[in-house]
């Protein structure tokens, strides 16, 4: 008996391992309320980028780059040039490029000319097609559709986070047990299927194994088959993967068990016998090298005059650049067109070092949107700005004044262990109580309104009681979004007045932790001397209306939340006398007159709010007022800059007009483009501000401050490369893949989104949970606002130091070695940029520069 038991447990264990390995194609996706940008192919980062794209094409049928038509269109628009393509071919296919010229029609034609002709005029490669299909997809697509519909129905019911009127019965038992209990009563299924569902085994592994057996899937084929099912609805599967890591009563084994059971049982009912032949879809047509050679000859004006021998010579050359790799050449060229000029601009002589003390220092998040604010503030007055991850090195669980569930405010790479509470400031107890009571009353009214809408009878009463006001209100929200937003804000303020508060920074961290945090943060950003009297730690968030993707616009370094609590905690710590003593003992002397202030940048309105003014000594108030005024001016200018690219924004507005426009936009419930978020992100620059000051980087670069001179052992750089860079790469890949394949990796159009279970959105009323970014976060109609390029990391530090860091961190070996991220470095300003390659550091030059 025990032997039988052991074999059975071993089989279950083996199945679990197969599911784990099959699920490597999925990156876990977070609930939409804390949307975290991830690399949808994160599980494939141990493979070269090109191989991962091939896997994604096979498993998901996904496109991994823009298609050739889009690249050729970019070429015609001058976004890619012959020189870019030449450079890309030299890097990717040097042997083909080095072949001898071919004589065609009496003229020697170089390999470059021939390869360019193929890239520009060759028959395009066919779109990718999913080749790992489930049995039902192959022989009974309607059954596959039913399996998907059932999956969506039960996952939405089980994972609901409070949106549904009725909770799924038995949820506390876990997904498989609850589904096993309810599924036999589902009258949408044939009676015979319902009867068989009554005898499902207790363990999901046993149900899955029996279903696999019934489907004729042998052990050697099992992992691929499981993967086919996971890839059928990758949005749900990826979210279940995230849930399974958070002990939510569901895992991929139970998810797959449900799908496999449905498939095997429904196929038994289907006319097509399981033994029936699978319908093989014809393979998509890929042009042969011979056909490509003829295309090239025609493109070169040789028409039909090319001989068979000449065609063979061309074909031999083209074999060196397979048709499946052409888009990678295009991508490389497309990236170079952005990267080469960027590095040239970064090679300009650095700005002279500041000799006077800045009026204030503003430490912003590395988020690309901060670049605009920093640039505009620096143009406004004698200010200095720095970049640092927006959680300011304090990974916290935060509970606000109203209490309730704590939020994890830190990168998802970390598990926060320090809990911070918001408490009324001294003497503000009564005001704080009014605020909490007001917030609860407003939340209760809102909840009551929505509950009434969802009730069976109450909507009729609600329409009678409130219908007269709802129409005019909706009209005001739509037609007068700005004034309506202002009025609503004032009413909220009256109902729940602001109250001065403090955070429990001293209680939430031990003295040692506070000291360590302060030292790490200042060293990482290179701010170890030259402190201004005011140093503002500026987190960020985004205020938008009726936007399920609001968290995607908040701070990624704060786990998809607003960053103010982190900035407030960090400022409180850095103002601590004990912390400053510790820092002084380690060579970081913060002048007695330097004061840290928290702030928050609203990226939808370009307003920076300086926080906790009641904690700032009166001696700084005049300077704080000046800074606040300059921040308004900088924000207005930034709004004007952003209006140039926001759809429907006024043409060439004054800064004041622009500010009014973006404020109205942020409160407009019908606005699908509240801001562009991180669209356009393309580079991650690590170095002092002197590298970038004065350059308009168009809000496309993550800027992390770093001074190699104060980081001799490389600890700070290692932290920057293994955490902020990783988060930036996730963001970059999320934008990249959502753009190149919005159907598989993105979220389609916002206009048909339905929020489901408060966990994500569906396109329409059924189907897959949409895993990525909506099209309106990436493009305006057909015009791409996000140019899909892999991240370029630019680091000003000794290359040997970078090498040592990469050598001991697998994550960096994969990112750089497998071409997920490109890396450029130089030790000192004025030196030439170097390119990180598998053959070591090489000069970052184009072929034309090399020839000179």
């Amino acid at each position, binding site marked *: 008996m025990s032997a039988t038991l052991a074999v059975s447990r071993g*089989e*279950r264990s083996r199945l679990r391992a197969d599911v784990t390995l099959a699920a490597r194609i999925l990156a876990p996706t977070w609930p939409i309320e804390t949307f975290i940008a991830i690399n949808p192919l994160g599980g494939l980062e141990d493979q070269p980028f090109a191989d991962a794209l091939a896997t994604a094409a096979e498993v998901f049928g996904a496109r991994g780059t823009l298609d050739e038509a889009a690249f050729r269109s970019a070429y015609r628009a001058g976004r890619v040039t012959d020189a870019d393509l030449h450079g890309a071919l030299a890097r990717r296919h040097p042997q083909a490029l080095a072949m001898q010229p071919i004589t065609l029609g009496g003229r020697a034609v170089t390999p470059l000319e021939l390869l360019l002709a193929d890239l520009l005029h060759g028959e395009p490669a066919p779109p990718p097609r999913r080749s790992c299909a489930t049995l039902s997809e192959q022989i009974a697509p309607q059954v596959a559709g039913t399996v998907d519909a059932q999956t969506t129905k039960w996952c939405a019911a089980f994972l609901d986070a409070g949106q549904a009127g009725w909770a799924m019965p038995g949820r506390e038992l876990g997904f498989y047990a609850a589904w096993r209990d309810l599924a036999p009563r589902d009258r949408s299924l044939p009676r015979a299927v319902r009867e068989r569902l009554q005898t499902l085994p207790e363990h999901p592994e046993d149900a899955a194994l029996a279903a696999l057996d019934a489907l004729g899937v042998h052990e050697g084929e099992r992992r691929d088959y499981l993967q086919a099912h996971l890839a059928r609805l990758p949005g749900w599967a990826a979210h279940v993967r995230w849930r399974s890591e958070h002990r939510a009563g569901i895992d991929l084994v139970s998810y797959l068990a449900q799908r496999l059971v449905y498939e095997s049982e429904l196929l038994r009912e289907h006319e097509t016998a399981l033994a029936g032949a699978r319908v093989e879809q014809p393979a998509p047509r890929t042009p042969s090298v011979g056909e490509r050679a003829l295309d090239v000859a025609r493109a070169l004006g040789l028409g039909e005059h090319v001989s068979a021998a000449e065609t063979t010579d061309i074909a031999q050359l083209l074999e060196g650049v397979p048709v499946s790799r052409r888009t990678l050449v295009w991508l490389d060229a497309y990236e170079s067109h952005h990267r080469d000029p960027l590095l040239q601009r970064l090679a300009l002589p650095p700005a002279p070092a500041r000799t006077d003390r800045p009026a204030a220092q503003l430490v912003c998040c590395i988020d690309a949107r901060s670049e605009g604010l920093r640039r505009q503030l620096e143009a406004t007055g004698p200010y200095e700005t720095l970049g640092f991850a927006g959680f300011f090195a304090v990974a916290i669980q935060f509970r606000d004044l109203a209490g309730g569930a704590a939020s994890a405010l830190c990168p998802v790479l970390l598990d926060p262990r320090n809990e911070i509470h918001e408490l009324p400031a001294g003497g503000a107890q009564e005001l704080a109580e009014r605020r909490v009571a007001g917030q609860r009353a407003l939340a209760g009214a809102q909840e009551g309104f929505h509950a009434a809408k969802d009730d069976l009878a109450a909507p009729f009463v609600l329409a009678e009681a409130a219908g007269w006001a709802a129409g005019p209100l909706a009209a005001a929200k739509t037609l007068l979004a700005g004034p309506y937003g202002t009025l609503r804000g004032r009413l909220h303020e009256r109902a729940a007045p602001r109250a001065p508060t403090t955070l429990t920074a001293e209680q939430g961290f031990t003295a040692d932790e506070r000291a360590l945090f302060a030292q790490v943060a200042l060293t990482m950003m290179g701010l170890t001397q030259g402190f201004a009297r005011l140093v503002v730690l500026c987190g960020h968030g985004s205020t938008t209306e009726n936007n399920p993707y609001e968290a995607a616009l908040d701070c990624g370094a704060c786990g998809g939340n607003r960053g103010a609590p982190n900035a407030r905690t960090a400022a409180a710590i850095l103002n601590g006398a004990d912390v400053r003593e510790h820092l002084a003992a380690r060579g970081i002397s913060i002048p007695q007159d330097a004061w840290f202030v928290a702030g928050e940048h609203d990226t939808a309105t370009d307003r920076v709010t300086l926080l906790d003014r009641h904690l700032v000594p009166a001696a700084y108030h005049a300077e704080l007022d000046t800074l606040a005024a300059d921040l308004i001016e900088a924000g207005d200018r930034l709004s004007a800059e952003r209006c140039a690219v926001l759809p429907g924004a006024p043409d060439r507005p004054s800064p004041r007009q622009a500010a009014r426009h973006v404020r109205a936009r942020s409160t407009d419930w019908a606005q699908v483009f509240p801001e562009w978020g991180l669209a356009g992100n393309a580079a991650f620059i690590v170095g002092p501000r002197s590298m970038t000051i004065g350059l308009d980087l168009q809000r496309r670069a993550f800027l992390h401050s770093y001074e190699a001179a104060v980081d001799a052992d490389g600890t700070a750089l290692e932290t920057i490369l293994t955490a902020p860079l990783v988060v930036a790469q996730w963001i970059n890949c999320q934008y990249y893949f959502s753009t190149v394949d919005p159907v598989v990796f993105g979220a389609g159009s916002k206009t048909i989104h339905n929020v489901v279970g408060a966990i994500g959105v569906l396109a329409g009323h059924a189907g897959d949970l949409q895993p990525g970014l909506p099209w309106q976060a990436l493009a305006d109609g057909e015009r791409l606002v996000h140019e899909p390029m892999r991240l370029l990391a630019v680091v000003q530090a000794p290359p040997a130091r970078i090498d040592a860091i990469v050598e001991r961190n697998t994550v960096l070996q994969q990112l750089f070695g497998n071409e997920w991220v490109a890396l450029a470095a130089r030790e000192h300003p004025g030196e030439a940029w170097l390119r990180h390659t598998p053959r070591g550091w090489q000069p970052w030059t184009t072929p034309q520069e090399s020839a000179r």
Partner: protein
Amino acid sequence: MSHDGLTKMTKIEVVVAGADASAVRELFQTTGATGFTSLSGVSGLGHHGYHQGRLLFNEQATLELLITVVPDTSVEALLAGLRPLLAESSGVMFVSDTYVSRPEYFT
């Protein structure tokens, strides 16, 4: 070596990337292990070169050591899952005899 009064069991130690640790923990639990110990941010030299230890702001990119102790009857079931998992990961596994004073804690 005398182990009077102790009960023989099997200790399984697994070193995997932090990203794979949850799958190993899940296998431990679903095959009947009553508990485990985990050490995150372990460093060392292995087949893939040197691995950095604790990173300040990334707990997923470092290696994790997971240790569990199970009765001999559970070993094969657990290994049936761990073997394929580790065959395709950069992790390693050590299986050894061990002796415990409170066997009821492990069954």
